[in-house]
């Protein structure tokens, strides 16, 4: 009799303690998830209410906000709240920098995975990682001190231009594109390559006709993630783009983006003023755009799964 009881006890004990560990672990993980999700939702709600105030409370028309090119919030007699030039500027630098960085990044990725997997990776990987580590203010300062005078003397214009912003951003998003593209290409099953070689294709034919199409959804994801970063970058762009509120007519014109206008003006405006609220509305546009980028990535990755 005595022997059975401790055995029962031990069984119960071990069962409860295992349950304890299970539920505790589950609780911690759920808590992490809840905190992350609630932070995101809280930011969305906060930005949503703040960003809509300029339309609901201050009576700025949404149509004027999105389509007018007249930005003059401090003029008390005749204020203008059109942010079209800034939206245009944001999109322009984003697409142009992706246009520059995508071929470079994907090219580098192919070099690292297919052409020279051993030493290419050894050299290029640290270079790319180094680019990630440089803070954006340093990019901006280098752009202002080196790139702006260079463009002014060799290309034309004032040096403060869409072009300068594009170049700085392209370098900044290059690591994102390169890293994801490298992962995408190197994770392709090797039977694709072997099958292609077996059919008599050359290395370049294999890369162009087999590997790139197979990795396409991931490559597009890489580019879009890069674009999302470019769209949100403020500091480096602000230092080189000139921050002019006119719609640029050429790539050498100074311009402005949503983020640069927000960072330039946020500290000077008082909470609750129209100016401050329109800045929040611009922040809301940025948030909506980043949602759009995420949706696009989700769509692309769901396509990849179907394959």
């Amino acid at each position, binding site marked *: 009799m005595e022997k059975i009881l401790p055995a029962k006890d031990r069984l119960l004990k071990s069962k409860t303690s295992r349950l304890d560990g299970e539920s505790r672990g589950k609780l911690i993980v759920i808590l992490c998830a*809840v905190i992350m*999700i*609630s932070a995101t*939702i*809280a930011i969305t*709600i906060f930005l949503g209410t703040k960003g809509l105030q300029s339309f609901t409370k201050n009576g700025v028309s949404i149509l004027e906000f999105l389509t007018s090119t007249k*930005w*003059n*919030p*401090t*003029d008390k007699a005749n204020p203008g709240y059109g942010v079209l030039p800034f939206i245009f500027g944001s999109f322009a630098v984003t697409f142009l920098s992706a246009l520059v960085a995508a071929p470079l990044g994907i090219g580098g990725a192919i070099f690292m995975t297919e052409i020279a997997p051993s030493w290419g990776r050894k050299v290029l990987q640290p270079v790319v990682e180094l680019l990630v580590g440089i803070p954006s203010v340093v990019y901006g300062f280098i752009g*202002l001190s080196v790139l*702006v*005078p260079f463009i*002014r003397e060799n290309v034309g214009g*004032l*040096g*403060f231009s869409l072009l300068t912003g594009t170049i700085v951003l392209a370098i900044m998003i290059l690591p994102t594109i390169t890293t994801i593209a490298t992962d995408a290409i190197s994770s392709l099953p090797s039977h694709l390559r072997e099958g292609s070689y077996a059919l008599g294709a050359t290395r370049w034919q294999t890369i162009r006709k087999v590997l790139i199409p197979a990795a396409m959804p991931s490559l597009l994801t890489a580019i879009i993630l890069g674009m999302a970063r470019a769209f949100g970058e403020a500091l480096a762009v602000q*230092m080189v783009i*000139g*921050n*002019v*509120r*006119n719609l640029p007519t050429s790539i050498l014109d*100074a311009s*402005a983006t949503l983020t640069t*206008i927000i960072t*330039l*003006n*946020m*500290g*000077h*405006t*008082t*909470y*609750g*003023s*129209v*100016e*401050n609220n329109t800045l929040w509305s611009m922040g809301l546009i940025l948030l909506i755009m980043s949602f759009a980028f995420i949706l696009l990535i989700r769509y692309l990755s769901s396509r990849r799964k179907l394959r």
Partner: protein
Amino acid sequence: MKSLKKLGLLSIITAFMLFAAACGSNSTKEDANGSNADEGTKSEELSGSLVISGSSAMQPLVAAAAEEFMAENPKVDVQVNAGGSGTGLSQVSEGSVQIGNSDVFAEEKEGIPANELVDHKVAVVGMTAAVNPKVGIDDISKEDLIKVFTGKITNWKELGGKDQKIVLVNRPDSSGTRAVFNKFALDGATPAEGITEDSSNTVKKIINETEGAIGYLAFSYFTDDSVTPLAIDGVKPTEENVQSGKFPIWAYQHSYTKGEAEGLAKAFLDYLMSDDIQNNLLKEQGYLPVTKMKVERDAEGNQKEL
């Protein structure tokens, strides 16, 4: 079943968020009350902490003064944050800091209950138009200056300078420096579009590097000949001319308190106005002592002799 679980999770999240939001607002209020109470009880023997925020242009000056103040009163902790005049005014009027620095009058900012705030003018800053040295002029009439900034004159040769296109360097719309320059140098005219930068150091760098550039800077940035300060209507931008009221482009640096300053805030503001700070530290930092001004200005910009 699965959807039910999801719904459950969602409602938990919402509940959590509401709870967190409620907590957040409560705790900040409590904090504010707490520090006010602290200040009231401890200020007699000059100890405790003082939080100052606002104009980034004033931050070096106030921080330097705070350092000396803390050296004299070791039990005091003064924190000086920069965040812009708008932030300073907003925070002082909602009571989250004791002193809010601003380079414009509170009356000029929208959404600030200026009647609840008490103005302490702690320094004067003079500013003038600055051009690239290669432009070749160092004097300009106010009329021409307005024409240059509104885009009616586009080449320096029209003013007797080099044959060089004029490049404007502006400040952001909401900047206090821009407001002062527009009001007293351009007589309220709206400047034409140009490169816009916030930081005075960046503006100076751009004027220095871009041929034909004109912008505006505080006197303290004219330390070398990388940019040329312009005299206006023949009046040189000097300390004496600002003090006598001959040179028009200057502004007060304000420290605002909510209601009359008391306790530590008052002690610190008195310290800022002391002869030692006004005559030595201000000069080092490139400001003009407010105590030596022979003229006075109100929020509307009306000037009168003292």
